[in-house]
């Protein structure tokens, strides 16, 4: 064996190579994850859970290190805790296919899992944090003004939600929690834009206003899912006009159909008038009777 081949076969060399590869891998992983923030001990198990969950549930579309996958999922490096919390708590993620609109649905994760994922995604990058929203701090009336100025165009004055073009829908807000409202305003999920001009006070107020939409209808009578005049028009036809037409059918229908014999022949009381008029277009001399009615 030559000196080179003896060196190459040396166990020390192998060990060094392995350690070097391991170190390199770790270094790459750490570098890939970006600047790892200082972590205190309590985050440890949470982050571990988060990392596990992420690897199995999210990395397929969002990339192993959160960089995003072309055609499947966007990068998470600019998403902070607010975004992660929002999509997980409203059941929007996991999303079955990138073509679908992420819609609110059943929540897939437990509270602990959500916290874990939120903590983990936070380490991948930087973005808006979960806002502290307290409707009690807000001004309901001002919230209503802001709502109508910014939100009603897509979410409808009643909070019912409406299509916004391209087959996308702004969702119904009546079941949204104040925190979700705040998160959505900050991150602009899906087709929704970011409302950067709204500060924390504004968000409190808007959340307070949306809570009032949530309550049982203020008037005590029932609305039609907040769909507005279209639903009202349909209701007028189906609930009022159709029954009325049915009632006229009951009222007006001659009991035995059109074949009933005529029981009486009535003449108009004014016999003279009736007689004079029986000949259509005949040349009848006018009867000028004095003082006739």
């Amino acid at each position, binding site marked *: 064996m030559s000196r080179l081949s003896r060196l190459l076969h040396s166990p020390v060399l192998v060990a060094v190579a392995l350690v070097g590869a391991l170190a390199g891998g770790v270094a790459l992983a750490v570098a890939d994850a970006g600047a790892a923030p200082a972590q205190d001990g309590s985050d440890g198990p949470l982050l571990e859970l988060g990392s596990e969950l992420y690897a199995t549930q999210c990395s397929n579309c969002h990339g192993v290190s959160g960089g995003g996958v072309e055609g499947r999922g966007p990068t998470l490096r600019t998403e902070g805790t607010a975004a992660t919390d929002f999509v997980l708590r409203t059941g929007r993620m996991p999303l079955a296919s990138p073509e679908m609109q992420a819609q609110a649905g059943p929540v897939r994760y437990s509270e602990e899992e959500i916290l874990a994922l939120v903590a983990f995604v936070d380490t991948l990058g930087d973005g808006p944090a979960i806002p502290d929203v307290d409707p009690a701090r807000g001004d*309901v*009336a001002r*919230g*209503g*003004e802001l709502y*109508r*100025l910014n939100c*009603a*165009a*897509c*979410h*409808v*004055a*009643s909070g019912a939600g*409406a*299509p*916004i*073009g391209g*087959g996308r*829908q*702004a969702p119904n807000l009546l079941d949204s929690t104040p925190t979700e409202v705040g998160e959505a305003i900050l991150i602009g999920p899906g087709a929704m834009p970011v409302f950067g001009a709204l500060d924390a006070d504004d968000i409190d107020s808007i959340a307070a*206003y949306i809570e*009032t939409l949530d309550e049982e*209808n*203020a*008037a005590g*009578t*029932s*609305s*039609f899912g*907040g*769909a*507005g*005049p*279209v*639903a*009202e*028009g*349909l*209701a*007028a*036809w189906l609930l*009022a*006009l159709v029954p*009325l037409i049915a*009632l*006229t*059918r009951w*009222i*007006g*229908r001659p009991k035995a159909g059109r*074949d009933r*014999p*005529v029981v009486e022949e*009535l003449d*108009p*009381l*004014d016999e003279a008038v009736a007689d004079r008029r*029986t000949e259509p277009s005949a040349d009848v001399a006018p009867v000028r009777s004095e003082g006739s*009615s």
Partner: protein
Amino acid sequence: MTDHDTTVETGETGDDGGRARRGVVERSVEAVTTRTGTSTWLTTTLRKVFPTHFSFLWGELALYSFVILLLTGTYLTFFFEGSQEELIYAGDYEPLRGQEVSAAFDSVMRISFETKGGLLIRQMHHWAALVFVGAVAIHMARVYFTGAFRRPRDLNWVIGVALLVLALAAGFTGYSLPDDLLSGTGLRITHAIILSIPFVGERLTYLIFGGDWPGTDIVGRLYPVHILLIPGLIIVLLTVHLALVWHQKHTQFRGPGRTQSNVVGERVWPAFALKSIGLFFLVAAVITAMGALFDINAVWLYGPYDVAEATSYAQPDWYIGFLEGSLRLFPPWETRIGGFMINNIVYSGIVVPTLIFGGLFAVPWIERRLTGDHADHHLADRPRDAPNRTGIGAASITAVTVLFLGGSQDVIAGTLNVSVGRVNTALQILFLVGPPVAFWLTRRSCLALLDRPGPERTERRAPIERLADGGYRVPLEVEDWMDAGGAAPGHFDRIAEEHSVRGTKQAHTHSENARRET
């Protein structure tokens, strides 16, 4: 006093007469008739016969909804303030407290939340408006499809279409009064349409709105229009409309004993009157129930109309939906001539409605032109008896329905979870394709129905006998037959010529019978 001398010979009350048994009402009425010489007139009126087909009651649905509108509307005028003066809302509805609103909006909020029973009356009023226009529409359809708009009732048809226009105007001005986001948006659109009128548009908007948009006058101006001008015009035209029906007498369907020169049905008093009054109470009941159970135009959700605010699902009341659909579905066409422009909304907001209502007004004359028939008609057709007319009617209704659907295109898209653009395209295609298809289908159905052999519902043919050789015999003289509502000689030949061979055999047999009888 002459009333003691008047005797009633024909004991109308059916009892043994005798002045002592006459009630207060009877004596009061007598007091009036003897002072005005109208006793005979009143008796004639009470004996007047009205036909009883149920579709003839639809006009009454409209009339009674209008009465309820007047009653509830009057009540509301005691509370509503027609002014755009700004004030701070300090009422019971918390989410708007502290908000700057107009006096009009504030008064509507007070009616809805602070006046006990106010919301009920307000919701009844608004539901009644929706029902009123719907009833007018089905009444108009009935008159059209039975040919009851022909001479001598073409005059009444014109008045009726005018009433429809006034009803739409009343509804529009009415829902614009609360000055909420939804109706304010509607007014904005109206402003834009008027602005686009060539030559006079801008000046007109300044006159109507008292300046540039939004101004502070418009609600205050719509108020007297809504509570005085339009109801006044409606009442006047309605009176003429009813007087004409009264004087010309109602049309009736053909049938045994029914001719062009009689009316078969029931007398005004007591049968017809009681049914009518009963119908009034039923209409009142339905509208009251709607007002009691269902929200309508929840202005507190829309908030006061304010600059830069907008909401989706922004539709007007249903009956303006055809205009909304026209605005939404009309392609983005605009005409530029030199430095001037015929705006897109001139086409969709002015030309289209003008064509629709122009067409409606012109119906009797179009019919005369197409059929050459200038005679008086007192017998109503069944829709199938006039296949072309019914077909055109079906086509028109299809076109207008597509417009109504177009007005709700975002709600449809949202409900079906498809893109608005796709709904738009589908409706635009439907607008072009639907009416011709509807015309053809309806006409074919009418002809097929006319074709059916057998004596079932053959009012237009008097009792028919089936002969041993398979043909039919109508055992009446031709003149009697015409009078009884049957067809003129050659009528069946005409039908046979009009459509395919399928009906020819029977038609020929009928016409042969007719000739045989002459």
